[in-house]
Structure formats: C-alpha cells, structure tokens
C-alpha cells in the first residue's frame, strides 16, 4: 500500500454506469421522501395562496389581500371558536397534565397489577375520537345518561346537563378529551419517574427526606422536560381537535362549542367559502406556530447544551 503526497487527478463524479446501476436504490430512497416533502411544502403554499384569493365554490386566481382573514376574524363563529380554544386548550392541558401526573405517581408505588392498571388508563388512546365522542354524548345526555340514571334512582333534583347548557357545553369536551388522552401524559411521566437515578433517591433518603419531600424536591423537578413535551403535544391536539367535537356536540348547542377546526371545515365544505376556509386554516397554523416555535427553540437550546456538556 502506498500513499503519495502528490495530488493525483480526482474523478469528481462516479462513472455514468455507476449511476445507472444504482438507479433502483436512488429511486426507492428519493421518490417516497421527495413525494412526502414536496406535498407538504407545496400543499401548504397552495392553501396559503388560496387564502389570498376570492375563491368561493372553486379556487380562482385573483388577489384580495387580507380580506379573507379580516372577514374570518370578524365573524362571530371564529370569535367563539377562538375563545373556546383558549378555554378548552388551557383547561384540557392543565387537567390532563395533573391527572396524568397523579396516575403516574400512583403507579410508581410498586403496586400489584400495575400492568393491568396501565393498560386501563391507556386503552382510550386506541379508540377513535368518533367513538369516544359518541359514547360520551350518550353518557352526558341529560335525558339518557348520568342525569337520567340519578333521577331514576330517586334524586330528581340532580342536574348534570352541561351538554345542552351553552355556558358549560365546552366542559363536556374537556371531560371526554381528558378521559381519552390523560393516559398519554401518564405514560410519559411514568417513564420519566422510572428513569430517575435510584442512587439519587437513596441519597435523599439518607439525607432524611420523607417520601413527599423526596417527590417534591428531588424527583418531580427532573420531570420538567417531559412536562413541556406533554404540554406541547396536548396543545397540538387541542388546536386541531375536530373528530371529538364533531361526534360529541357537533359545535352545539348552537355554536357554543365551536372550535377552529370546525370553522375551517364549515367554511370549506359546507358554506363553499374556500378563500375564507383557507384563511382560517392558515390562522390555525399560526396558532400552532405560537406553541411550536418556542418549543423548537427550547429543544434546540437543550440539544446544544447536551452536545456541549
């Protein structure tokens, strides 16, 4: 073997025959990936473009500036949807976080039947939102569900009619959403609790910390990164929630439980206002970015720190 210092002419490109021989492999790598990437980029741009056109029943070219956006944002439909999103998003995320954390801590106590219990808390995630919504619409229906049962049992003054109460209906969605997806928070928190270094817990015990203090001061602080991940994922779900609401309240009573995703669908496919529908979709994306961009920045900083340490 010889290496010489003199630079010999380098062939910059593999021979053409090599490219032909490797064509099948290039095709399998590139075609699906390019198709996926291209449809994501072009479809997003397409929707953004439509949102600036006067399209109604069919997409047309033309430029209306921000008129679709101002029209959507001025509509009562969107205002209610946005307020609902704020309420639903914060209540659902906070409560499912708390529920998930409590479940994880309970399961972390080395209890018997942990696997069965974990399966029970997680099974709603395997069920479609349509099924969840339908089932909860029955349970919460005052004439059919829990209220009816309690009445039949003799307590006739009992009231649990949130489903038909304009002010409270949004909470039925919160309840169903928590039932469906707090198991997700539990799974992540439990994994986090289990990954805490056992030596740290021993050290805390030797330092004289009781169980509650150990959790509060030593274990829970390590769960911060997981908490942020859970919040972001749940917010992402809340912002694009559609199936669940469609099946549970369908936006009603009236438009009391309207949410952005329903507004988009309504504008696009029921009122044939493609331009406004697209504008509402872009608004949804913007709301999502408000959540995701800080998260991405945070992740980036975390990763930088990890690689520098």
């Amino acid at each position, binding site marked *: *073997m*010889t*290496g*010489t*210092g*003199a*630079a*010999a002419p*380098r*062939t910059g490109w*593999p021979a053409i025959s090599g490219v032909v021989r490797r064509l099948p492999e290039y095709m399998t790598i590139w075609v699906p990936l390019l198709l996926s990437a291209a449809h994501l980029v072009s479809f997003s741009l397409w929707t953004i473009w439509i949102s600036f056109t006067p399209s109604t029943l069919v997409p047309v070219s033309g430029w209306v500036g921000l008129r679709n956006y101002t029209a959507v944002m001025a509509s009562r439909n969107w205002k209610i949807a946005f307020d609902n999103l704020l309420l639903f998003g914060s209540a659902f995320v906070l409560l499912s976080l708390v529920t998930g954390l409590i479940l994880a801590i309970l399961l972390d106590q080395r209890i018997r039947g942990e696997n069965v219990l974990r399966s029970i808390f997680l099974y709603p995630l395997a069920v479609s939102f349509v099924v969840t919504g339908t089932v909860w619409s029955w349970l919460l229906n005052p004439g059919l569900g829990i209220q009816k049962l309690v009445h039949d049992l003799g307590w006739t003054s009992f009231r649990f009619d949130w489903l038909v109460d304009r002010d409270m209906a949004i909470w039925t969605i919160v309840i169903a959403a928590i039932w469906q997806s707090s198991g997700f928070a539990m799974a992540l928190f439990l994994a986090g609790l289990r990954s805490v270094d056992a030596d740290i817990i021993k050290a805390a015990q030797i330092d004289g910390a009781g169980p509650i203090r150990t959790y509060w001061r030593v274990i829970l602080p390590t769960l911060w990164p997981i908490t942020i991940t859970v919040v972001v994922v749940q917010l992402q779900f809340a912002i694009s929630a559609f199936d669940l609401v469609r099946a549970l309240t369908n936006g009603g009573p009236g438009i009391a439980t309207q949410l952005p995703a329903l507004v988009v669908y309504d504008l696009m496919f029921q009122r044939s206002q493609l331009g406004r529908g697209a504008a509402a979709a872009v608004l949804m994306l913007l709301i999502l970015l408000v959540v995701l961009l800080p998260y991405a920045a945070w992740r980036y900083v975390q990763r930088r720190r990890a690689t520098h340490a």
Partner: protein
Amino acid sequence: MSKRYANLEVLKGINLDIESGEFTVLVGPSGCGKSTLLNIVAGLDRPSAGTVEIGGRVVNDIAPKDRDIAMVFQSYALYPSMTVRQNITFGMECRHVPKAEQEKALASVARLLQIEPLLGRKPSQLSGGQRQRVAMGRALVRDPLLFLFDEPLSNLDAKLRVEMRMEIKRLHQRIGATIVYVTHDQIEAMTMATRIAVMHHGEVQQFADPDTVYRYPANLFVARFMGSPPMNTMPARLVAEDGGPVVVIGAGRPDEVRLRLQGYDAAASFVGRDVVLGIRPECIAEGSRGFSGASGAPIVINAPVEMVEPTGAETIVLLRLGGEPVLARITPDIRPAPGALAPFALDTRRICLFDPVTERLIA
C-alpha cells in the same frame, strides 16, 4: 495524502509505504486521525487529495468490496441476525462464490481459529473473546491482500487482551499476511508490530520498527507517548568539558547533576546551548546495579526520594535529579524511604537529547 472535513484538516501529508507481509501498527492518542486513515485505506472514506495504492493499483475510485481488503472492527460489527457461519460466509455470498468453495474456506478458517463448535450460534450467544475470533474469521476467510484492524482488542478485558494479542501475532507469523493495525495502546504496538507509525495531529511522527521507535524516538511526542511509564524529559544544558560533551541538569543549583556523554557526536553543534534531556525510567536503577556493557564504573548519584510505588515486579520511585522530577524503575528488593537520599545508578548510554525548539531528536 490528506483528508479534510469541512475546515478541519485531520490528515496532513501522510506518506506510508508498507511492504508485503508487514505488520504495521498505527498508534496515537484518540483523535490523531489513525482511524480516518484506516477508513480511507478501506475505501469507506475518500481522501481530499492524494492517492491510495494497494498491491501497486491505485484504488481511490474503487469500492471497498473490490479493494481486496478485509477489516476487523472495534465493535466486531458481527451481523446480529446471522449465525457465526453466515457471518463468515456473507462476503463470499455477496461475491457469488460457489457453495462448495464457501464451505471449504469456512472449514479451514474455523479450524485455524478453533471456532468450529460456535458456527451455529448467534453473536449474542458468544463471549467477547469468541466474538473477536469470529470477526477475525470473517476477515481471514477473504484471504485478502491487506488486513485492516481497527482497535480490535479495546473492548476486551485485560487478561483476554493479552491472550488475543499473542494470538494475532502468532496468526501473522503463520500466514504471513500484510496487516495494518490501528490502536491507541502503545504496548499493543510494541508487542505486535514489525513497524510502528506513531501519529499525532494527523501527521505521522515516526515510522520505524519498534526498537527504533523506543530507543530513538524521533521527537518529544513519540518519547512521551511510547513506554509506560513514559520517558522522563527535562530541560538541561549541554557543555563541553575535557573535550567531551557533558549534559547538566539544574545547572547552577547546589544539587546540579552533570552527566558525561560518550558517542553523542551529533550533538556537537548544541554544545553551550539548552537541550531537552530524555531518559527512560529503566535507565535509572538502584545504586548497586551495574548496567551491562557499560565501560568503566556506572554513574551513581545520590538523589532525594519523594515517593515510592511498589508494583510487585518492580518498584517505581519518584526522585529529583537537579531539582527535576524523574521516575526510576528499581528492583523490588529495595525500598528507599521517602524524604531521604538514596543512591541511583544511571545508564548514560541511552540518554536522548532533543532540540527544545523543534522538539526533534538530536542524538
């Protein structure tokens, strides 16, 4: 030949010529570029400039599989889903070697490495040493022009490492293969190599047989890298006295040490100037030792002992020569007391002198 990654030049002007049948060891601290060099030879990396020749053929644009090489990896890189048999024959399968021939090659390699009972097992069912053997078997079965070893022993425990070291050396002697072997362990380099290339900062510092590398390190880096404990190096001054060179450690101090040198003609131009003196720990011994072959009486110096480290076979002593800390290797029969003066014999024939500016060996 050189290699750049973005703006980082990891290999500079490497020029190695390896004879057929040689066992060449590339040794250096981690990050010195030795693995990159090996990957370039294997064809897994491309050089930024320069050529790689194997068996007189320029292989820069030839795929790894066509270079007539075999490689043993640090992690062994055994295919986890295949049995030992399949691991060894996979390369032949890729090259469409007839089944009968595959079986023959497999059988002879398995016999050579004594892994016949393991052929039906999966890698996960093997011990570290057995995996190592299978990885070697996979390389041997190719019967290539060139074997490449990438730190193959670093994942083994100390005892097994010594055994495998001897086994690889025996294998080399038996089949006379050409081997390029990368390691950061200088003992592996010393024990196995016919020639060692010491690498640092992407450059070959010295390329020579083990004795030369050990006895005449080309520069201070090689002197300090090879040997355990490493060579003692300290500032000194070279003066002429009675017509011959004398090296002075701690000049001007009350405890200065003056050592007369013989046969250091190459150092003549440094008379009257500062040098770096290098002396191996085994060249400093207890005062009663007579270094064989030394003309005249050995030089014996009383020096203060700072610390004593018995290792069983020998005792390492930290002492001061002209104020400079120095390690000595003495017989375990003697235990000088820390803090006291003790007599030490010095083998001045094996002193190395280095240029303090260029750090190169003078004599």
